[in-house]
């Protein structure tokens, strides 16, 4: 067993040194390697099933061994990244506007961190976190919400008048970030029943939210129910529930739209800017992903005006 791990990790280490992966976050690297293994299975299998590696094992088993070992290799890189994200980007002062119990923010944050760490062990959730962490670390929420508050158009109206958030812009940003971190939770609660057809899109039926809420409350007892509900709702389609909280709708958009962000990305001549392109593509896929198209329209305008 240990021998298997050594062989698998040696092979995976070689993939990890591929220059294409330079500059990517640890989860983006992991995603790339998993895809590579999935796509090149037929070519890899003859060598990986030879005496030198995993003799006689079927491909699915080999793939499982590789996946497990990849997680072992990535986790030491991921945890410091996650810690850094929590330290620098996650604040909980918004809780003061939601709950009567004041001053427990550090404990809630700690509980949330532990919960996210646990969710990282769920493969589907782990994959979702790639987009979430990328969006968080590239300040998507801050950049767009700053613009939303200065424009005071649809999104602002939805946040302040419809959802009636009585908190400052900074607190709204905090809330959206926390919802983004909680959004992949649907991968843990009976997701097999809840995932809509169409592959890996984590979109659940509205009735699933009620079922999952209890379980989530038990895991995060200090987090206000409204936040948990918003997080679960962010995985439902706006096309099926027009009363979805604006924060959840924003979180849903940023969790996936910016997941292709690359640090070394440069705009080709003749191409639109990256975020403008991605948001426009998301507009066209709005129904498929359950996005609020009016929000995307506004974000598209923001991206275009700021050349993002």
């Amino acid at each position, binding site marked *: 067993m240990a021998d298997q791990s050594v*062989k698998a990790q*040696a*092979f995976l280490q*070689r*993939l990890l040194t*591929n220059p*294409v*992966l330079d500059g990517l976050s640890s989860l983006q690297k992991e995603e*790339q*390697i998993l*895809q*590579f293994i*999935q*796509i*090149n299975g037929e*070519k*890899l299998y003859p*060598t990986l099933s030879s005496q*030198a590696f995993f003799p006689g094992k079927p491909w699915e088993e080999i793939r499982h061994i590789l996946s497990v070992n990849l997680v072992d290799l990535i986790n030491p890189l991921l945890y410091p990244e996650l810690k850094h994200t929590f330290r620098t980007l996650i604040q909980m002062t918004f809780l003061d506007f939601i709950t009567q119990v004041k001053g427990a923010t550090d404990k809630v944050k700690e509980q949330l961190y532990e919960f996210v760490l646990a969710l990282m062990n769920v493969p589907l959730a782990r994959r979702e976190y790639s987009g979430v962490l990328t969006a968080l670390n590239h300040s998507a929420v801050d950049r767009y919400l700053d613009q939303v508050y200065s424009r005071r158009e649809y999104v602002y109206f939805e946040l302040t008048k419809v959802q009636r958030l009585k908190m400052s812009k900074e607190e709204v940003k905090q809330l959206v970030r926390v919802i983004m971190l909680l959004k992949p939770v649907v991968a843990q609660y009976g997701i097999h029943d809840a995932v809509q057809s*169409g*592959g*890996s*899109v984590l979109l659940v039926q509205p009735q699933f939210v009620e079922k999952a809420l209890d379980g989530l409350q038990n895991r995060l007892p200090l987090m206000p129910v409204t936040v948990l509900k918003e997080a679960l709702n962010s995985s439902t389609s706006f096309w099926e529930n027009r009363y979805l909280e604006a924060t959840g709708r924003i979180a849903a958009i940023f969790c996936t739209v910016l997941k*292709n962000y*690359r640090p070394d990305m440069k*705009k*080709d*001549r*003749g*191409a*639109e*800017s*990256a975020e*403008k*392109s*991605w948001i*426009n*593509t*998301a507009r*066209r*896929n709005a129904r*498929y992903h359950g996005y609020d198209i009016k929000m995307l329209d506004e974000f598209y305008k923001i991206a275009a005006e700021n050349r993002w």
Partner: protein
Amino acid sequence: MEREKGSFLENLVMIMIVLVIIQTLLEDMCTLWMADWASRRILVFTGVVFDLFFTIEFLLRFQSAVVRKKTFQYMVKQRGWVDFLASVPLLVFHSGPSAFSIMSAGGPVFAAAGVLNVLKIIKAVRIARVLRLLRVLKIFRQLKYADSPMAQRHIAKIATAMVSAVVAVVLISQFAGSFSTVTGDSSMGPYHDGVAGLLAEDSSKLQAEDVAKKFPDILVVKLNGNTLYTRYDNDYYRTQFGPLDYSYETREDYEVFFDLRWTNALQARTDLVYLLIIIGVIIVLVVYYSPHFALTVTDPLHVMHRGMTEQHYNLEVKILPKYADDDVFRLAKAYNEGFLPMKGRMAEAAPLENDIKIEKIEDLFKGL
């Protein structure tokens, strides 16, 4: 090492192309401004050096193409014929004979007048020098907007066609004029003949001076070897005149030397105009048309190609409203509105492509 050597030679050729264009412009400008002979002589000899360099370069490329059995490809597809026309004929028919005539004429101003008529044919070949400009197109590869091979090929094709057409027309018309010179009947011939006849009517020194004053291009009038009239002193002739700057007519016992610098200046002006027209055309093509071609054709195609071949490349094509009805942009619209959203949905369901590209899978396992 080979690559470095090749790159060094390419850079050297580029530098020489720029220098030869400067030399060509200077040579014509010096003729136009009637600069002193010493300066013009230096330019003639540097012209030989350049022509020799480009002839050797062409022969080396040609030989390499023959060895690689790619003669046709080099001569036709890689525009070897431009390299040929802009080197060998210039050395053989223009700069080489000019230099030879200067060297054989030596110091005295009035000599070898017979050779000069032959050199007039050679002047017609000078226009082929502008073909070298086509090679400058290679330099523009480094420019923004001109870095697409397709854009480069199109610009090169258009430039080659235009410049070749201009050169061909000028060459044919100049050749037609020059051939009449060989028969001894140049455009200036009847005029020079008439002036010489006027002098022959009266052999007095006074008559010679009168006639010479009326015709400012008369330099010297000699009767039986004795100078009847000279416009300048010998020092002036030595410093200002070269073998191509005068012509010579005889009538009975008279010898008349005519100043050709005016005619040469007119010719140089025409050559300069041709050269500047072609430089202008190439600059317009490269600086104005090339970006337009890139923005409306190659750039959108490049973006679409990347989007179709790279999994994580999801940038939309920027559609220029002014050209939205162009075929390319209609295709780009379909790409933006149809392909990219579909690609996004499919990639989430089952990725078909991956950023990690390994040429040989076996290489992954080496040493493991």
